[in-house]
């Protein structure tokens, strides 16, 4: 079954499965003081060091969470509250118009419930944020900015943002910058310290680890108000008994994904080119969305004029090819993507879009399966038209 939806979730690495399985068989709460507790604690701390080393962070900067959404919420709300508490005038949040819902909705919640004032940075037609726009947004009133959050790489079209440059600008004004790097870790080089970030979100299941295990990298000097109160297990910023198997799986997978990143990039980039060129050959009016060079290696995002993305997905699914319309909401209804709309696409173009995302198990056969089906599928979907 050709699976081209690795940006939704990617198969767990066998090494991670082994590590998780072994950890599940071991007793011990990492907060306990006895032998079993110390053994579990050792697993957690070794994992913390392993993960920190893989992404250019210090072990004390790793806060394990229950996934990317929690890490994003902790970054956004936690930094906002801490900064506003220190200075009540800091109520502005600057973010991009193409963020994942985990950031976008958290920011909107702050706007609705906490009086945050949100500045949505526009993107160009390739999905890139302009550093000049960030500077202008800050300079409108530098003292009122609580934080900046711009994703490392977009989950729909794969465009990579100039996060290091953006962080540099934010730091000129002593403003912290968070980046959702859920799609980036393991796909492109990600170095927390080198990029100069204050906070970074990553998650296990996008890089070959388990679901429900993620982390927020948070600089030691960045204060965040907790979302979850309890035992204070993670630096007093995040409470909850540590999920030892999840943490072990996350770190094992992250270390391997980062180690293999250069080869993965080359391989996926080649496969993606084959996919994009093949689709272009068969569907002459197809639009390829995203940035030509500043992008993830595995995401190919297309708009098929006159087609409904739903129809395309269903027809491909019936042929055993699994992909995505980009963003699914809880009802399973694909809304016109806010990412494409922000990039200047029309609602009709946005609705006629498909995302194929390649990952570590992708093969040339997967790509060829798409190329074997896409011509007739687009033709049929076009007949069905836009509803």
């Amino acid at each position, binding site marked *: 079954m050709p699976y081209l939806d690795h940006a939704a979730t990617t198969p767990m690495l066998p090494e991670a499965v082994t590590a998780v399985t072994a950890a599940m068989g071991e007793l011990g709460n990492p907060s306990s003081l006895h032998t079993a507790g110390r053994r579990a604690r050792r697993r957690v701390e070794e994992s913390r060091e392993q993960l920190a080393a893989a992404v250019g962070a210090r072990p004390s900067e790793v806060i394990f969470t229950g996934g990317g959404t929690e890490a994003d919420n902790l970054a956004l709300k936690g930094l906002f509250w801490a900064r506003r508490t220190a200075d009540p005038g800091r109520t502005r949040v600057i973010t991009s118009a193409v963020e994942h819902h985990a950031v976008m909705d958290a920011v909107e919640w702050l706007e609705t419930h906490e009086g945050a004032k949100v500045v949505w940075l526009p993107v160009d037609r390739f999905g890139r944020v302009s550093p000049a726009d960030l500077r202008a947004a800050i300079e409108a009133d530098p003292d009122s900015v609580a934080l900046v959050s711009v994703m490392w790489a977009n989950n729909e079209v794969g465009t990579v943002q100039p996060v290091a440059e953006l962080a540099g600008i934010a730091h000129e004004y002593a403003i912290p910058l968070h980046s959702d790097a859920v799609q980036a870790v393991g796909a492109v080089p990600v170095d927390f310290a080198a990029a100069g970030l204050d906070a970074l979100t990553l998650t296990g299941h996008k890089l070959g680890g388990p679901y429900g295990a993620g982390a927020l990298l948070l600089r030691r000097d960045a204060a965040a108000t907790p979302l979850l109160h309890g035992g204070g297990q993670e630096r007093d910023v995040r409470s909850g008994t540590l999920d030892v198997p999840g943490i072990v799986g996350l770190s094992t997978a992250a270390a391997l994904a980062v180690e293999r990143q250069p080869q993965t990039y080359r391989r996926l980039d080649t496969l993606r080119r084959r996919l994009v060129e093949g689709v272009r050959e068969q569907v002459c009016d197809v639009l390829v969305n995203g940035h030509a060079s500043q992008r993830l290696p595995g995401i190919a995002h297309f708009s098929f004029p006159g087609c409904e993305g739903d129809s395309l997905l269903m027809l491909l699914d*019936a042929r055993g090819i699994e992909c995505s319309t980009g963003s699914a909401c809880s009802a*399973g209804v694909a809304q016109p993507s806010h990412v494409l709309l922000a990039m200047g696409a029309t609602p009709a173009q946005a609705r006629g879009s498909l995302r194929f995302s390649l990952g570590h198990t992708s093969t040339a056969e997967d790509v060829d399966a798409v190329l074997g089906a896409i011509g007739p599928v687009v033709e049929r979907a076009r007949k069905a038209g836009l509803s």
Partner: protein
Amino acid sequence: MKVLAAMSGGVDSAVAAARAVDAGHEVTGVHLALAAQPATLRHGARGCCTLEDSHDARRAADVLGIPFYVWDLAERFRADVIDDFVAEYAAGRTPNPCLRCNEKIKFAAVLDRALALGFDAVVTGHHARLDGGTLRRSVDLAKDQSYVLAVLTPEQLAHSIFPLGDSTKERVRAEAAARGLAVADKPDSHDICFIADGDTRGFLARELGSAEGPIVDAVSGERLGTHHGAHGFTVGQRRGLNITVPAPGGQPRYVLSIRPADNTVVVGPGELLQADEIQAGPVLWTSGAAPGDAFDCLVQLRAHGMVGEAGITVEGSRVLARLRRPERGVAAGQALVMYDGDRVLGSATISDARASLSAAGTPLTTTLRDA
């Protein structure tokens, strides 16, 4: 055949899909998202458009082992059903949105898309039978939905499958339970799906405003009271008129007509509601052609009842129905559906109902189902 099963999340459409699978069809389930901003959870027995209903449909599809998708038809539904509903009320008529949904959404937008995508037919959980292209009432008269399907053309019916027409609702529920479908004891949906709180009058007031206007007596022309929006009334309505002037002889008064032009509600005694001559059109003949220029048949004048004998005269694309016995409260905007026994002959929208000079006697109203 490759068939598309429309799955609302209710018990009927789940069993219909299951029977289509048993019949050997290659079935794909589709839930139609009709609400622009669906509620998360269902309230009571209303509607079919919450996320919970979508979830129920998905779980039924899981149990049946069929692929399942959600199609977003909220925009089409808004334009073709809700806006039409509001416009009809604004024009003083009483529309049937379920009928419109079948006509414009389920057996038009959905069927067209299904056919274009390579499906052969659409399966729904409607209680009605299809016999070689003839639409018939369900064996369960209390649940029969042939009235709201009578708007379908022969071409639409040729691509429709109604697997439930031979079963009572009770049997459908028992079968759902036996098949392990969790929706087996889900309450039936009532009322209008897009009016979640069931308050049609409030909905219309929000859509159309609630301009005060007179309630006048049809006989004397006297102003009897004030209403807060003429569209909140239905022809034949007796309760909720808030008239302070008592009628002569203490006779109850009924809404006789609604005049949108001067925002007036006309009321009067029940006799004036009697009608035995009904104009309706355009007419849709289920078999593609009228049975004759003039013929006798049964007619049904609203979704839940009002069945009687009539003589039909075909006048081009319209029909004139002469009822054997007058009916009370026939509303413009409702469908007149013609039946030969339990077989649907055709359907037309009622434009006018009046009493002929010979009208007399008591109305006969056969109640097909509990209101």
